[in-house]
């Protein structure tokens, strides 16, 4: 009898019968009411959900996950999880898991075989290779993303691959590139253990990165003093733990950053040495480009002159005294200051700008490069860093920080991939919004999109413009690889059942440059198969049909893999897929790309042993592999020479300096007016991951947060005559949504603001949002558009 709930219920009946005959004088019965599950094994894996990258241990017995525990050995979370992590095992077991490939015939999805499905996809590729696109994901494992990347960039060579991370992290990326010349945070989570001041720039880590927030709270529990400053447009659970709450008007973050810089200059309270040694100055060029134009200190100072505390108060709504307070913090060289941000600054029509401005405040004040002094961009998805940003699954990128426009980068990629010289296309493909616009337009260039591990019908902004029209187009074919029925499978032409999380091998990379690995632990249900296998199988079908795109330089299959004896293994047959470790093969090939930008990855087996390692991981003289906690800082970063202190060795000004950008405040494209007087903001909640396709099937999460709602300020509600719990209709210029109002609930927006979470597929808020995007990152702004409310 094993210790699961089903067996417990059976056992209880037996035990009840037995106890009646027990001798009262006997010793306490040793019969166990529930024996430990037989063969219960525990194996490590990163959690399936957010970008924190907590480690769990998964308890498996009889081929099923029966428990999860926080991994005490993991540095990220030290044994603690959040409600999603504790219940991540349940994500595999929703009853309506997709089990069979489905093809839409006469409006209905009917089961077909994998063989037929692969043929269908190959047919679509052959229809016109230029128009076949991949829409991928920051939840792609590294090998999955790498396989799709190689298929598109090294195979079809149309560069039509873009990820959902375009919608979440793209502005963080362009911000890093514009300032440091290379992507990803210099610091790591260790900064949270050392900071004196933690500034939240429009994010809610108590719900969205709860483990990281708890890491700070635990320091307070032990008596340490950490000042938490919450800058936001609404009060959240994070605000409850904050010392200061700065109520900000949407877009005010730009003004606040400039306001701090202005005061530091005015008072002469900036770090003169740091700026003199390590910084150069930039401003927007005409026409605008990612790296702008070089300016000097005086122009920088002049640009900031207008951002007095009073002016900043006008623009941001934050009182001048609080701007002064922020400047006081940054002016103090003895404080360690960590800034945290996520979607508030990234999903922003000026996302690149505001990212560069907050980096700038840290650089200007010298709060950089020491543990606790860190501008820390947090990632939302578990592998937006590891897969999208590092493997480069973006329309303009190649692996390892390279770009298609760069001839040397193309040649290096062609060499590693062993494809014919000139194969890689120098012309970037379409970014996400443009890809879906093209797909939705009659005669658009994109005729087929293969979606893997994401749900664009629920997450793309302005769904009515970017998604729905494609379904009316004569010849637009939508392929979706997923694990559950979603809003996207609902409208797809071909649905492919996929293996998820511990049903396959995997690797991901979290917010602090930590690459993590896990092994397959249980079988996927029905005919569900690994996404990576699906990509390789389609590649093989095309190769078998004689397509040259799937041949390498020697005429071999692009994804040729050999066993130890040198014999090719037919990994495109799923029953042979686990004969070798495909993940390892792909990862070892991908590793070669990572040296250029000093994002060195260690061999696969190092990640098997570790609870992740932060790159650059560099081999030591004794053969061991050492990770890097802090980049660009001497003593921590192996690529910083002795005596340099700080070295931005990918500097865009080629002089080891980071860029201090002057950027003006720019208003959002759509602001409230008489017709639509409210600001609409969207976002997440603790219990639900993204579109809820997994978490809504996990009962504890679903029951704690069963449906979406609109948060209203009590005075706004009163003015509308709306009571808590009453249904209201929310309208924007793009769509309408009827849902319940929640007044003074979990979040409390400021007057004139409303908030709707996006997890509920029955109440898709992205019918209302605006697709306007940042000019450099192409990332849309989900946090600001104009709306109105009326009683239902």
């Amino acid at each position: 009898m094993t210790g699961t709930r089903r067996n417990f219920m059976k056992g209880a009946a037996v035990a009840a019968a037995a106890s009646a005959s027990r001798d009262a004088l006997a010793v306490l019965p040793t019969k166990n009411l529930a024996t430990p599950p037989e063969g219960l094994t525990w194996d490590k894996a990163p959690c399936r959900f957010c970008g924190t990258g907590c480690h769990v241990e998964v308890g498996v017995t009889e081929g099923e996950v029966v428990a999860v525990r926080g991994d005490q050995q993991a540095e990220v979370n030290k044994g603690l999880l959040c409600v999603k992590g504790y219940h991540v095992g349940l994500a595999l077991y929703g009853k309506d898991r997709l089990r069979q490939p489905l093809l839409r015939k006469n409006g209905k999805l009917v089961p077909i075989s994998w063989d037929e499905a692969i043929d269908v996809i190959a047919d679509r590729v052959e229809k016109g290779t230029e128009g076949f696109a991949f829409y991928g994901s920051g939840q792609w494992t590294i090998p999955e993303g790498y396989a799709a990347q190689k298929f598109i960039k090294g195979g079809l060579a149309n560069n039509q691959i873009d990820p959902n991370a375009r919608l979440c992290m793209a502005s963080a990326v362009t911000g890093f590139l514009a300032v440091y010349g290379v992507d990803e945070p210099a610091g790591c989570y260790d900064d949270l253990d050392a900071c004196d001041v933690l500034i939240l720039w429009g994010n809610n880590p108590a719900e969205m990165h709860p483990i990281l927030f708890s890491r700070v709270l635990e320091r307070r529990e032990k008596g340490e003093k950490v000042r938490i400053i919450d800058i936001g447009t609404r009060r959240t659970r994070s605000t409850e733990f904050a010392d200061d709450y700065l109520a900000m008007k949407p877009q005010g973050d730009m003004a606040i950053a400039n306001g701090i810089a202005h005061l530091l200059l005015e008072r002469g309270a900036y770090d003169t040495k740091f700026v003199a040694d390590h910084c150069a100055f930039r401003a927007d060029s005409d026409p605008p480009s990612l790296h702008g134009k070089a300016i000097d200190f005086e122009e920088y100072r002049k640009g900031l002159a207008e951002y007095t505390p009073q002016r900043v108060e006008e623009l941001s709504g934050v009182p001048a005294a609080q701007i002064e307070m922020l400047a006081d913090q940054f002016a103090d060289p003895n404080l360690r200051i960590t800034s945290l941000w996520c979607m508030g600054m990234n999903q922003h029509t000026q996302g690149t700008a505001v990212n560069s401005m907050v980096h700038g405040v840290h650089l200007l004040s010298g709060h950089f490069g020491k543990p606790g002094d860190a501008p820390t961009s947090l990632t939302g998805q578990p592998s937006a860093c590891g897969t999208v940003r590092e493997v480069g699954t973006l329309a303009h990128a190649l692996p390892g920080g390279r770009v298609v426009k760069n001839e040397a980068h193309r040649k290096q990629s062609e060499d590693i991939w062993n494809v014919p010289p000139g194969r890689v296309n120098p012309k970037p493909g379409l970014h996400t919004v443009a890809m879906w616009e093209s797909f939705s337009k009659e005669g658009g260039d994109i005729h087929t999109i293969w979606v893997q591990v994401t749900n664009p019908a629920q997450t793309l902004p302005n769904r009515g413009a970017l998604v729905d029209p494609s379904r009316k187009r004569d010849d637009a074919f939508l392929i979706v690889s997923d694990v559950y029925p979603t809003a996207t499978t609902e409208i797809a032409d071909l649905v492919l059942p996929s293996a998820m999380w511990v049903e396959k091998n995997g690797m991901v990379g979290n917010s602090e440059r930590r690459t993590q690995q896990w092994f397959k632990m249980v079988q996927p249900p029905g005919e569900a198969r690994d996404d990576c296998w699906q990509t390789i199988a389609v590649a093989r079908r095309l190769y078998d049909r004689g397509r040259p795109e799937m041949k390498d330089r020697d005429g071999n299959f692009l994804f040729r893999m050999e066993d130890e004896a040198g014999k090719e293994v037919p990994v495109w047959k799923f029953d042979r897929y686990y004969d070798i470790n495909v993940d390892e093969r792909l990862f070892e090939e991908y590793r070669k790309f990572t040296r250029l930008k000093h994002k060195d990855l260690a061999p696969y087996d190092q990640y098997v042993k570790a609870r992740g390692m932060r790159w650059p991981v560099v081999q030591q003289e004794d053969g061991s592999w050492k990770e890097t906690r802090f980049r660009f800082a001497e003593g921590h970063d192996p690529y910083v020479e002795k005596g340099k202190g700080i070295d931005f060795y990918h500097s865009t000004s080629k002089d080891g300096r980071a860029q201090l950008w002057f950027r003006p405040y720019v208003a959002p494209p759509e602001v409230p007016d008489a017709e639509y007087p409210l600001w609409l903001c969207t976002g997440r909640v603790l219990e639900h991951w993204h579109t809820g396709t997994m978490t809504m099937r996990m009962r504890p999460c679903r029951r704690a947060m069963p449906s979406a709602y609109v948060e209203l300020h009590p005075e706004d509600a009163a003015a509308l005559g709306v009571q808590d719990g009453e249904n209201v209709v929310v309208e924007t210029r793009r769509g309408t949504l009827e849902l319940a109002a929640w007044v003074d609930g979990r979040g409390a927006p400021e007057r004139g603001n409303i908030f709707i979470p996006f997890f509920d597929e029955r109440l898709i808020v992205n019918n209302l949002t605006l697709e306007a995007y940042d000019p450099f990152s192409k990332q849309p702004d989900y946090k600001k558009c104009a709306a109105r409310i009326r009683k239902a």
Partner: protein
Amino acid sequence: MNWDDNNNPRKLFMLVAGLLVGLAATAFLTSSDHASHERHKQPAGEVEDSARPARTYRELATNPWRQPQPFDGALANLPVNGGRLDDSTREAWIGERAKRRAYDGAPPVVPHAITERSSAACLTCHADGMAFPQGDRASTICHDVLRSCTQCHVPATSGITNADVAAADAYFGENVFEGRMGTVGERAAPGAPPMIPHTTWMRERCSACHGEAGPNPLRTPHTSRTHCRQCHGSSAQEEQHPGFG
């Protein structure tokens, strides 16, 4: 002790008091042997309704003090297994406990409404298992204090309206996950202290469940002993091994 001539009355008083205490002590000490004999002879369940008249010291010699009723009778009435539950009651209780947890080790859901934004109030009742007039006790936090309670402990049902939960359940369907159950600690031999059948990670405060504040089915018969780990060993299977993997 420095005796003053002026304190003669006090001196006398102290002497007499000392004598009396000494007498009482002697009487007590001699009586206790008799008392234990007497206890064994007491018929079970005897309870005296009226207050007993005080005895003189002379009477105490032949009719010594005893343990007060009804303790005597109650002792004989105690079941030999120390008042612990039988298997079916225990299983029923474990079933109740399991309803609040997806698997043994999962953070229990909160079976009552909460304030959604702030966790500040949780420990008011759950720090020390606050007792309520109707006889219930709030559960006691069994792990070291972590301030963001709702990060892990979410309401069992929530929503703007109750219809929300039912509608969501119907729309998203069932989940066939079967969580592992908790186990009972094994003993090496009859009478040996049972092994801890669960991890002590996030369950460092044994008394939260097994002490006075703990629910009856889990309460140890020896709540006065608070150094639990002296006798109760950890399970190699349940604790995460250092150096794993």
